[in-house]
């Protein structure tokens, strides 16, 4: 079988005027990998994708496709296909013409074009829509046309820019599964941009977390969730993300809000400026612990998120138990000492 495309991104920096959009990004994407760029808006993930497509120039750095430097290559010569967030379907062309456009530009023969378009449209189940115009299609159907246009040319690399963000919640879940299957059957290196952690976690082999123009951490979904490398990543990953509370070590004891959490004498004897991270479901309410006040309760159906005020800071507690709490009630909070993460407040790094 054909060996897939390996991407190496080396020291990429991108600026718009004086504003730095991307700072020194380094990344290797393995052949046939499904790689997700995850981050909030403005974090640089889409810019990185567009750089891979050749749609953005860079100020510094290099990109290699299978060890070949393609930093200066035009988008057309990179043999990539992209699904845009807006789908970017040609509005004046029928679905058939849209899907066949890349083949036509590539000089593929007419009878082959028909065959390829048929295959691609069957794959995403839109073969009954070939004569329609994009304007006559629903959002989900348009999204499939964009996918068909991307897969029809059998490119070396798929770039997907938030392809599910314009679909309604139910369709998004269905399409997510289909995307995963599509990647399995095509087995092509795929880069997927999303701000939705759940999408990134379920789809990707590996995730790159982008924050403020920097690639903060790269790893499998489990690695990123279980082992966030920094405060920034910890504060972003998880739904809701980890609670972060100021802490210090006094005489080998970890103390948060004046309460002893656990003995920590092995690494430091005394240390200030620490942050404890704890996931919302590793908190429990009980007789003893840090004093808190119930601020707001969010019902999620099978579980609820209890927003607590601890020293003017909001701490989220997620629980499946049916608690009879009322907003404004005083409670005591304890943190599961085995589930805490410790960060250095100054460097932001995990300890």
């Amino acid at each position: 079988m054909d060996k897939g495309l390996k991407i190496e991104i080396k020291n990429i920096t991108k600026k718009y005027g004086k504003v730095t959009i991307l700072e020194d990004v380094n990344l290797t994407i393995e052949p046939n990998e499904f790689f997700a760029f995850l981050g909030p808006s403005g974090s640089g993930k889409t810019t990185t994708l567009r750089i891979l497509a050749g749609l953005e120039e860079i100020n510094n750095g290099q990109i290699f496709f299978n060890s070949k430097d393609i930093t200066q290559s035009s988008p057309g010569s990179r043999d990539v296909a992209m699904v845009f967030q807006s789908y970017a379907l040609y509005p004046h062309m029928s679905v058939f013409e849209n899907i066949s456009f890349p083949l036509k530009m590539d000089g593929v023969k007419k009878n082959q074009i028909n065959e390829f378009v048929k295959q691609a449209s069957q794959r995403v189940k839109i073969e009954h829509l070939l004569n329609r115009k994009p304007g006559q299609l629903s959002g989900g159907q348009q999204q499939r046309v964009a996918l068909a246009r991307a897969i029809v040319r059998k490119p070396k690399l798929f770039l997907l820019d938030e392809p599910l963000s314009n679909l309604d919640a139910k369709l998004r879940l269905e399409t997510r599964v289909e995307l995963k299957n599509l990647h399995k059957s095509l087995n092509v290196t795929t880069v997927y941009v999303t701000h939705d952690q759940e999408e990134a976690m379920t789809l990707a082999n590996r995730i790159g977390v982008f924050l403020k123009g920097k690639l903060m951490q790269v790893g499998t979904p489990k690695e990123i969730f279980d082992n966030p490398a920094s405060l920034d990543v910890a504060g972003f990953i998880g739904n809701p993300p980890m609670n972060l509370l100021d802490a210090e070590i006094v005489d080998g004891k970890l103390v948060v809000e004046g309460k002893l959490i656990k003995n920590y004498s092995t690494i430091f004897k005394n240390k200030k400026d620490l942050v404890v991270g704890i996931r919302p479901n590793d908190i429990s309410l009980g007789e003893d612990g840090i004093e808190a006040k119930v601020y707001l309760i969010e019902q999620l159906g099978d579980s609820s998120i209890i927003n607590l005020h601890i020293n003017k800071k909001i701490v989220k507690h997620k629980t499946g138990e049916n608690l009879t709490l009322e907003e404004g009630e005083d409670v005591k909070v304890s943190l599961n000492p085995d589930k805490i993460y410790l960060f250095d407040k100054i460097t932001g790094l995990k300890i």
Partner: protein
Amino acid sequence: MMSEKSFATYLITPSIIVLLLTTTFPILYLIWSSFQNINLAMPWMDGFVGFKNYIEMFQDKQFWKSFRLTITYTASTVILQLIIGLGLALLVLKIPKAQWVFRLMAILPIVLAPVVVGLFWRTLMLAPDFGIIDFFTKTIGLGSFAWLSEPRLAVISVILIHTWQWTPFAFLVLLASLASLPTDLYEAAKIDKAPAYKRFFYITLPLIRPAIIIIIIIRSMVALSAYAAIYAATRGGPGTATEILNLYAYRTSFLEVNFGYGSTLAVFILLITITVAGILYSIRKKRS
């Protein structure tokens, strides 16, 4: 209390009366005149003549010559305006800053009265020896030309004058249309390996087609009714070299005072204008 409907009727009645008096009535009178012999030079011949004027018109060599000239004038000015306007719009679109300067400059010829444009070209631009164009052709070694007094050159000159005045209109409409095209389509096309000229023919042109059709409709109507600029520049001359149908109808009616035949020519112009407009509008409807 007056009902909304009757109040509305009161409001629009004056304008309907004015329209009837100023538009509908003159057109009906024109059509009536076209079936009459009305000739101030031979008033004793006046009276209803049926289709005599029309039969005469189709046998009139000057009519056919003016008709052909009108078609040439309309087609070439519209095509030139479109091509030059599109070229300029594509060019200005690439200018990152101060596009407004070009928009402002483009408005200037449009706001001039056509008669001023005609006079200005006749004196400042095209006058032999003194005109700017003549100065230019002499400078590059082509020599001096009788721009408005040599028949073939005169036709080219009046076409250029009209094109000069109205290309900015096409330019502004096309610039607005081009500026509204979504950039992601072009990015998609780049990734789909479409080179620049294919992006233009497969994406830009089809997407701005509505604007192009509107320009053709409006500009054809105006070119068919063109009068003042040509009159000011050449008076239809030399001889009848630049005498389009409007000028021929004017000459027949007001210089030869043959109002009956002049009306027939005017009715004919009205008919082609309506026909051309009808055809273009039906094309537009079909496409959209």
